[in-house]
């Protein structure tokens, strides 16, 4: 085939050179730029124009060699860059490197209902800061697992009980390893208590997983299908992440309600958490009232930091929502790919059966088997996509809502302080009036009230400063955690992708001799 073809005109009529299909930036833009500045790194190789026509005719034997020079460039570069090279700094942090627990891939990929191995142990950064925060000097060491969902009861009164296992060396707990049974409403109750105690003073309390009336009803009614098992697994994983996040918070960890939740075998039933209860409706009303109030509070922000941060969180919120939508699309498409692969595997098997040339027939059957295995791989990868990625993003979207809530509380606090100041002013005016009107008993009353309100103003100012201080610390902590969390998940996710590719290599390597055996 000759090489010269005039490519089809595209909208702008510009002829594209179809020989050169490498994008200029290619795969390693961000990493290559950090490494290229080192004197020891190799010159960027000039890329040979990738000749697609060779591939499409298949006349060249496909050796397993990267035809993309940039990828080779990166491989070389990693070898050359030594630990002493100055370019390493942006990547290595000055703190001791995080102790990343190697996660066994099988644990990630098969979401089994009863297994604790699905839950990766919480990975803790032994940073100096965190150790400083320890009131009693314990090493911050606690692991929570949620497992063994068990249906208790029948019909509409049935519920799922989950086993909550704690492993810890902290002295505040009486044992080093213990477990309890909890139901979903217990978790909601815990969150409700923590929120009422800590949210209004500026602590970011991790939100509990969401209720789902539809999901739960299916389980109650006893539908034993894959969608209800998936629902239970999704919930179990969410509860686990919720607890893990909660205990990571140094202040919340000290809370007696949390301890009681983790330790005591009997827990008073939290009825106020039911969606349709009186308390539930009251909550909804309060939320609405809050929303209205927020709109009417005009705060004089003296501190630009808060405005900046609020804007940043707004942006982050949007970014995460978009990413979440993209990941959901990914999960969906992967599931489609999986079912299409399965369908193809079947038709390849049928074709193999029809084929009257023996060796080709066998090869086609082998192809069908490979495709079936690949289908399985796709399914597992889809689970990984979802549980690692998509759920993390949902968690963070709700966490940001909690962060926004905390900022709102600060505004309310400011409003209270402001109101106290206004009232104080009024009381002073009253006193002045009484003095002029010469009513001695009223003057005394006014003076008392002034003292009362002066105290309130002082308290309001103190509260406001306290909440501002707390929020600053909390936001700093949140940002560190977020980045760490995401980094961990990205690493886990990439490792799952590597795992999938390794399996693919195994399958195709087994198939190749079969194809070659066709005579």
């Amino acid at each position, binding site marked *: 085939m000759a090489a010269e073809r005039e490519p089809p005109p595209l909208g702008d009529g510009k002829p594209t050179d179809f020989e050169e299909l490498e994008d200029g930036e290619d795969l390693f833009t961000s990493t290559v730029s950090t490494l290229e500045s080192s004197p020891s790194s190799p010159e960027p190789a000039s890329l040979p124009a990738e000749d697609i026509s060779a591939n499409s005719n298949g006349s060249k034997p496909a050796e397993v060699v990267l035809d993309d020079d940039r990828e080779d460039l990166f491989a070389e570069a990693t070898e050359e860059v030594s630990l002493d090279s100055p370019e390493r700094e942006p990547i290595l942090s000055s703190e001791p*490197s995080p102790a990343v627990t190697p996660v066994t891939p099988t644990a990630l990929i098969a979401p089994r209902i009863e297994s604790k191995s699905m839950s990766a142990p919480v990975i803790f950064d032994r940073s100096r800061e965190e150790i400083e925060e320890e009131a009693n000097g314990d090493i911050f060491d606690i692991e929570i697992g949620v497992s063994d969902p068990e249906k208790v009861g029948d019909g509409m009164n049935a519920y799922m009980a989950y086993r909550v296992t704690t492993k810890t060396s902290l002295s505040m707990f009486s044992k080093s390893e213990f477990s309890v049974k909890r139901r979903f409403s217990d978790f909601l109750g815990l969150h409700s208590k923590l929120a009422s105690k800590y949210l209004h003073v500026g602590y970011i309390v991790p939100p509990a997983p969401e209720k789902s009336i539809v999901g739960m009803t299916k389980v109650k009614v006893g539908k034993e299908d894959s969608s209800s098992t998936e629902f239970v697994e999704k919930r179990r994983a969410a509860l686990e992440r919720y607890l893990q996040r909660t205990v990571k918070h140094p202040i919340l960890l000290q809370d007696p309600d949390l301890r009681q939740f983790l330790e005591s075998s009997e827990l008073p039933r939290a009825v106020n958490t039911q969606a349709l209860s009186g308390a539930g409706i009251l909550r909804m009303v309060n939320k609405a009232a809050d929303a209205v109030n927020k709109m009417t509070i005009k705060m004089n922000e003296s501190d630009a930091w808060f405005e900046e941060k609020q804007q940043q969180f707004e942006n982050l919120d949007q970014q995460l929502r978009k990413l979440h939508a993209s990941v959901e699309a990914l999960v969906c498409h992967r599931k489609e790919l999986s079912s299409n692969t399965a369908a193809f595997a079947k038709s390849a098997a049928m074709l193999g059966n029809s084929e009257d040339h023996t060796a080709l027939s066998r090869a086609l059957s082998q192809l069908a088997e490979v495709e079936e295995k690949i289908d399985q791989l796709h399914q597992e990868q889809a689970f990984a996509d979802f549980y690692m990625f998509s759920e993390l993003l949902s968690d963070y979207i709700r966490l940001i809502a909690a962060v926004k809530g905390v900022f709102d509380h600060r505004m309310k606090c400011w409003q209270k302080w402001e109101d106290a100041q206004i009232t104080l002013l009024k009381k002073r005016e009253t006193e002045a009036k009484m003095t002029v009107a010469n009513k001695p008993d009223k003057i005394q009353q006014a003076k008392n009230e002034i003292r009362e309100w002066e105290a309130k103003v002082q308290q309001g100012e103190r509260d406001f400063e306290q909440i501002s201080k707390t929020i600053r610390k909390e936001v700093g902590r949140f940002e560190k955690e977020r980045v760490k969390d995401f980094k961990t998940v990205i690493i886990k996710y990439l490792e799952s992708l590597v795992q999938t590719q390794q399996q693919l290599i195994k399958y195709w390597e087994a198939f190749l001799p079969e194809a070659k055996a066709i005579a």
Partner: protein
Amino acid sequence: MLVDLQGDSSLQVEISDAVSERDKVKFTVQTKSCLPHFAQTEFSVVRQHEEFIWLHDAYVENEEYAGLIIPPAPPRPDFEASREKLQKLGEGDSSISREEFAKMKQELEAEYLAIFKKTVAMHEVFLQRLAAHPTLRRDHNFFVFLEYGQDLSVRGKNRKELLGGFLRNIVKSADEALITGMSGLKEVDDFFEHERTFLLEYHTRIRDACLRADRVMRSHKCLADDYIPISAALSRLGTQEVPFPLPTFLTQKLEGRVASDEDLKLSDMLRYYARDSQAAKDLLYRRLRALADYENANKALDRARTRNREVRPAESHQQLCCQRFERLSDSAKQELMDFKSRRVSSFRKNLIELAELELKHAKASTLLLRNTLVALKGKP
């Protein structure tokens, strides 16, 4: 590679250039030949898709080639879907970054280009099979197609041709009755009996496999493209202190390549052999029709003999039918054996290449991902 052609060098045909215009594609067909028939040893003409179809139909309608498998006609070039996608991208979403937009545009352009190259390949392989076949290459219409400088004025189906097409479909269903054995015609030859049952089943199944392979390829492509917005968003979530040095568009490129290789090595091959097996079925129809004619001629001869009227013409007619049937059977046998070896060698080559390419991509992906992990973890 769709067909392993062991042609000799006395007639080499290729499509040296192709241009896509608004609604048509112009192929430059270049011939190199030392055959005495041609005026020059090297020459080119420009042909459009309809002219290929004309050539194909001319072969099909030619009684001389009734005993041969006529290479399947190339499919019509179809850029509609791809053009639509490009247009949609142009009008679309202002919320994606410039980087993402450029990447998506590049992907769509690559897709458009791939479709273009495929249609060229299909037209070329059609001509090359003709050139390699000892009988078909000597056809007068073929020479005209290759050599005649002006266009062949076969554009657009006129009414007569449309009608012809309609009638051909009716004939087709009668053929179906023949080949599925419903007409009560007795097959005399075991070889052909086997081929008949084999081809019927094979053709259905390979068409099915081709459709499903297409779907796999499309989902794979979708999946690959999903990584475009995801990697961009993930990188942005890093910070200065903790950057996320992810490769631009993560595994999108590699996954995309897997999809296009699957397309070329698997889907295209299955599609080609679905058409080729249809052409083989057509051959079987023609032979069975000849057999039916032969049987009818026998019956007519018997009748004539009983009545003792017009025996001579009945005899000569019967002889003609017999000869025709035997000629068709002989050449059909050879053609079907060639079809089998062609098919086996092509599957072998493509399956090997498919496996090798899948391995190559998986290894490249692994390398890419591992390097990324090293960069992310910040370990030596």
